[in-house]
């Protein structure tokens, strides 16, 4: 038997509210691409932070190349040969790629040498990185490559990647996989953290599945199906969605050549966005994050009221200058991407949080009827199956998935005529995500017009009737979801859609 690169025995970590890891064992051989699969909150991130020295385990033993080690901090981890690429990049926008890499290195190495090393590593692994470009001009995929190059400069024996594909186009994912396979052939072990089953099945040699902090399975992912992996991950198969044929109604929401200069220096300007959503259909907006989705959502919700007159119409009436509340009165509801702090006030109770968008319990004189507020919150908790102690529970005490069910429920229950959602199941566990998607489909069948922005292509294909792609603040023409493929949408995500067709549409 070959010697193990990394061996974890009985690792446990208790946080005040949850046991994040409970007697976890993990064995990684040299050159192995080892998947760690689990839902949000299954303990994947804690386990990786333990290996990287950022968190100390309460119990258990770590063996590195056969010898027991104590990794007290990330510095010691790097000294051993462990590198990590985090889900959220830690790059300074105003510095160049090389300067960012240089920051993490020994100061005695001259910058010119760093630039040269970056070019060498980039060439060796086919990572397209220009070390001299400032980070704010790089796309998300390019930024990730900078992070990977930074990790590889240390010549690691183990590379940890935390949800690396959540920000990439399908084409960029393929490129990343080529690099990872090359690394593996050179003997570098890779820990690949993900909840995307397809990726794990194509890329990884071995898979350890976590659920509720415990290992629930160790399998060879190439021999498994999505269904069997998902059983291990959530303990059940995700419910099937019923997709009935769409009954299209009138045009509910129309955006006409919307142009909006960016407010934030690192934001995206919208240049001539046009789209139409009809009653009874779901329009999905695909795109790599940071391509104008947030700006478009703010303009549609009314949080950003700078839209030129006539550019946004709701049932034929101009609403471009209306605030969120007047739009809501006309039937347009919105579920934002950030749950805590935008969709809900963290310190306030669920009951009080209903008052953000629901005014039934407020009298005309501005008096709040407490008992009605409580009743509404209670009915939302019941109807949408929210795991919460009650209507008095503060919003921040709920898990991400449950809070999302509550917020989506709050808007769905308002019987909207147009519902706009941004990342409706982002960071939500599989069960809750299925509940939310089923609610959205039901709303569509009831004749509501839905607009969904998501970075998860699988989700968009699952629920949308038509798809459009947003890239660099521009919008592609729409295409029926059953007439297109992940590959085509992926290409469009880089801005490569047939332009003439776009002109015809606009």
């Amino acid at each position, binding site marked *: 038997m070959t010697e193990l690169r990394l061996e974890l025995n009985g690792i446990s970590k208790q946080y*005040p509210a949850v046991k994040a890891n409970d007697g976890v064992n993990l064995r990684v051989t040299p050159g192995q691409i080892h998947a760690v699969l689990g839902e949000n909150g299954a303990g994947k991130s804690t386990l990786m932070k333990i290996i990287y020295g*950022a968190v100390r385990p309460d119990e258990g033993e770590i063996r590195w190349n056969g010898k027991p080690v104590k990794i007290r901090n990330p510095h010691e981890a790097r000294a051993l040969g462990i590198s990590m690429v985090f889900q959220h990049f830690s790059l300074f926008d105003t510095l160049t790629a090389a300067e960012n890499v240089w920051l993490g290195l020994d100061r005695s190495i001259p910058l010119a040498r760093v630039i040269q090393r970056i070019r060498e590593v980039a060439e060796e692994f086919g990572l397209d990185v220009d070390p001299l470009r400032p980070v704010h001009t790089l796309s998300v995929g390019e930024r990730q490559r900078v992070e990977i190059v930074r990790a590889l400069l240390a010549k690691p024996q183990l590379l940890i990647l935390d949800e690396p594909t959540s920000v990439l186009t399908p084409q960029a994912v393929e490129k990343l996989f080529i690099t990872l396979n090359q690394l593996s052939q050179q003997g570098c072990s890779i820990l690949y953290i993900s909840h995307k089953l397809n990726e794990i099945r194509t890329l990884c040699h071995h898979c350890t599945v976590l659920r509720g902090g415990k290992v629930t399975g160790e399998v060879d992912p190439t021999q498994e199906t999505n269904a069997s992996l998902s059983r291990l991950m959530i303990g059940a198969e995700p419910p099937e969605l019923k997709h009935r044929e769409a009954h299209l109604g009138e045009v509910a929401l129309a955006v006409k050549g919307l142009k909006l200069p960016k407010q934030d220096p690192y934001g995206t300007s919208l240049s001539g966005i046009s789209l139409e959503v009809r009653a009874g259909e779901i329009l999905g907006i695909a795109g790599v994050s940071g391509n104008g989705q947030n700006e478009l959502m703010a303009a549609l919700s009314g949080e950003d009221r700078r839209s030129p007159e006539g550019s946004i119409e709701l049932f034929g009436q101009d609403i471009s200058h209306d605030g969120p509340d007047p739009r809501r009165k006309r039937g347009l509801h919105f579920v934002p991407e950030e749950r805590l702090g935008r969709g809900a006030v963290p310190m306030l109770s669920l009951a009080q949080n209903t008052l*953000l968008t629901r005014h039934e319990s407020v009298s005309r004189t501005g008096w709040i009827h407490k008992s009605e507020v409580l009743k509404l919150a209670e009915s939302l908790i019941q109807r949408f199956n929210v795991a919460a102690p009650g209507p008095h529970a503060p919003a921040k005490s709920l898990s991400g998935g449950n809070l999302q069910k509550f917020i989506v429920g709050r808007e769905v229950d308002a019987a909207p005529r147009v519902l706009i959602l941004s990342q409706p199941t982002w960071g939500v566990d599989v069960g809750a995500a299925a509940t939310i998607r089923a609610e959205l489909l039901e709303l569509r069948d009831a004749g509501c017009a839905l607009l969904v922005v998501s970075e998860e292509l699988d989700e968009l294909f699952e629920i949308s009737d038509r798809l459009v792609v947003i890239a660099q603040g521009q919008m592609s023409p729409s295409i029926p979801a059953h007439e297109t493929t992940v590959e085509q949408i992926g290409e469009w995500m880089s801005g490569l859609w047939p332009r003439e067709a776009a002109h015809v549409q606009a």
Partner: protein
Amino acid sequence: MFKLEARPQPSRLMSCASPLIALAITVLIGVCLFIWLGKDPVKGLEIFFVEPLKNAQAISELAVKAVPLLLIALGLAVCVRANVWNIGAEGQYLLGAVAASWVAMQAGPGTGRWIVVAILLAGVIGGAIWSGIVAFLKDRFNANEILVSLMLVYVGQQLLDFLVYGPWKDPDGYNFPQTITFLSVTKIPRLMVGYRANIGVIIAIVAVAALWVFLFRTYRGFQLQVGGMAPAAARYAGFSSRSALWIGLLISGGMAGLAGALEVAGPMGQLTPYLSVGYGFAAIIVAFVGRLHPVGIVFSSLLMSLFYIGGELAQSRLGLPKAMTSVFQGLLLFTLLGCDTLILNRLRWIGVGKPKHSEEA
């Protein structure tokens, strides 16, 4: 060694106990201070905590000082809950007093008791105008409200000085910088003959109830607080941050002005340059010690008033420096903030000698 770790849920017990523990620690440090200064600690504590409560007269004096603190702190609580940092209540208090004095000086032989109402209204308007300047500059030019409101305190003091040294100086006042003594018809009615406490006490109690209702039962109050707690959520809901700014500042300015009017037409009876004794600044502490909650502020204003009177007594009876009052105020705020850490966190014994480690992400 102890380790501080986050509690899964805020502790209800600690949120009640924290002010009491803070008070106990303040007293303990106070005892040490008395010993260090060579004074009998028992006598010192008696003067701070028993003397000011020993009879009806003393309690009336306690109320005289507590009422302005309570009124100003209530307004500040609303303002801070809207995430608007009004540091200049002292200036609004002065301007309220100036406006009230002007009305009081208009009284003639034929004036009826209604003038008291006019005096109080003038106080509210004076204070609200002063804080309205802050709101306007913030709204129009995004000027920092902390700086503007603080600077306006000094402008207010200069304005007051100008008036009492100049146009409003009492011609028969032997050139002292003060206005005429207001006619007795303008005097704020007292609660009982022989005691200085006046109807300000009743106004304050009504204000506590009114602001409690505003904050926790009305939609306007809700909107204002959402803007303070989560600005992005307020934008998402469509609540106007401008109206929260104006409401917060106008209420707090108006309340401070009301306190100024009650003071100048009550215990003082004339306008002098020595009107400013720092109520506006002490009220910031009162508001926070009272957890920005109207009922909590009732207790904290009484406590702060106790420190004021205790400090004066300690000065005259024990020969302690006047700074003792500020020391006690500061100690209380400091220990309270310290103890409040335990509402969201707890201490856990992790054994001896284990080195502390930091968790980085």
